[in-house]
């Protein structure tokens, strides 16, 4: 059971404030939905937490440890896992090898044990073509592989960046079920960035709305959807209608 705390986090790209003074914490086996219009700073927030960028100011803590200036691979060891909006598979490795690297490099397991564990993980995710090269997988299998890759690092907090993009409705249902199962079985806190509201409604225990880098609303799905600020952010304010 891990806990992620984000305190007064700000990221500026030259003149643009991509993430503006964000305070957010979640943990346990909570699933938290992060939504917001395009350019709201959702992916930047994930990049800051996983160590792709470093923040301009503010703090990030996992289980009380300050990881604000820590390099990405060390954060992974402390339990920060993520997937990518634009899929990033390692094309010269097979599917199983893609998953093994998490076990090997963040949990220091041997090749043999990593392989066994990766096969078990594949089975639990219904990903049975693990000996194939990544380029032979379909889009759902690649998404599952990315989730498996992240789970192999034994995350306490898993950040899923638009993991549903490009899936049809059947595939969507399957992946939603899978994420629910993962959260419950692995006791991992999940932060899920998503544009498909149905997915957020189905999965999220709590929803955070970002706009222009700042938190606009934080609460249950129903609460957030009724919030007039959120409606204005998505549909435009009454004054301009």
């Amino acid at each position, binding site marked *: 059971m891990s806990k992620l705390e984000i305190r007064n986090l700000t990221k500026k790209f030259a003149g643009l404030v991509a993430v503006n003074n964000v305070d957010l914490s979640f943990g346990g086996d909570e699933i938290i939905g992060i939504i917001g219009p395009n350019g709201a700073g959702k992916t930047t927030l994930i990049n800051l937490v996983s*160590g792709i960028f470093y923040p301009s100011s503010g703090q990030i803590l996992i289980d009380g440890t300050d990881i604000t200036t820590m390099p990405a691979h060390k954060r*992974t060891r402390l339990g920060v896992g993520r997937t990518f909006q634009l899929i990033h598979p*390692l*094309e*010269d490795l097979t599917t199983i090898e893609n998953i093994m*690297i998490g076990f*090997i490099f963040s949990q220091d397991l041997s090749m043999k044990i990593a392989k066994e564990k990766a096969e078990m993980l594949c089975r639990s995710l219904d990903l049975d073509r693990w000996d194939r090269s990544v380029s*032979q997988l379909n889009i759902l299998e690649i998404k599952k592989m990315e989730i498996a890759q992240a789970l192999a690092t034994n995350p306490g907090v898993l950040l899923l960046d638009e993991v549903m993009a490009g899936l049809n409705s059947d595939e969507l249902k399957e992946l939603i079920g899978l994420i629910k199962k993962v959260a419950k079985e692995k006791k991992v806190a999940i932060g899920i960035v998503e544009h498909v509201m149905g997915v957020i409604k189905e999965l999220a225990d709590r929803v955070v709305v970002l706009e222009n880098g700042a938190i606009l609303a934080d609460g249950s799905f129903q609460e957030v959807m009724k919030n007039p600020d959120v409606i204005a952010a998505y549909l435009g304010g009454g004054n301009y209608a």
Partner: protein
Amino acid sequence: MKISPKIVIFLIIILLSIAFPFFAGPYQQSIAKNVIIYMILALSWNMLLKTGQISFGLAGFFGIGAYASVLLSLKLGIPPILTIVLGGIVTSLVASAMGMIILRLRAMYFAITTLALGEIFRVIIHNVPNFAGGAHGLILPGVIFDGNGLYTYWLFLGAALFSIGLSYYFDKSKIHLALTAIRDNETTAKVRGIDIFKYLLIVFTITAGMQGIAGGLYAQSFGFVTPESSFSGDFILLPIAMALLGGIYTTAGPVVGAIVLGVISEYLKLYIPYGHLIVYGLIIVIVILFMPNGIIGALYVKIDGRKTFGKVDQPNE
């Protein structure tokens, strides 16, 4: 216990290599030693290429190893075999210090920097007459094993087998996964827990050490070093051509490439003096255009019946 035919073939090749001097003349042996020098360079270059980084620093490290070995023999009187190993270690130390700085660079910036650094070593040695002989170089009182061809050949063969073993280990261990991940996508590699800088530094240091050992072998077997011959551009171009011809990202590729191109180059020097460089160029162009996975890649397709090998033309079902 079942013995696989692969191991049998491998053992036969090793035995034949050990027995080679008994049925080959001195000229063939000198070709073999040349091939081995380039084989070690090609293997080490390919090992670093697995991370996606192209190094043109081979000649620089080759020269450092050669000079370190000769200087240790001359100034401290250390036995030649030991100085070859120590030369490799000195080269590794220099490379790790350099790597701390230049391994933050990528792609062509890294390639150009390694080329420039190799050249800097040559210029420095060229201009320091009292310590390393300046432009005249240094001459050893005698060559290794007092010129005993048999022992010299076996020493070279040992170095080649050591390099092949190291490269094979890099292909089969977790290092292979780390390096390939770094080449494919650094962002994915680091969020999955791979310490990119650490692995780059390890590979850079080890491969530079191999290049230094090759330099030491070369210097001790010919008994001299000069800035122009020990830092020669041949030690950059030929190994790269060999690795490309044989097939990159494998261990067998640079080995096969070094043997094929190494033997061809001897005949080219005989029949087309001064024109052989053009032929190397043509070979490289033809291989890249028509056989991007090299000889080994083409063989895999034939033997295994695989449609493809490596990254090129992966079929989508």
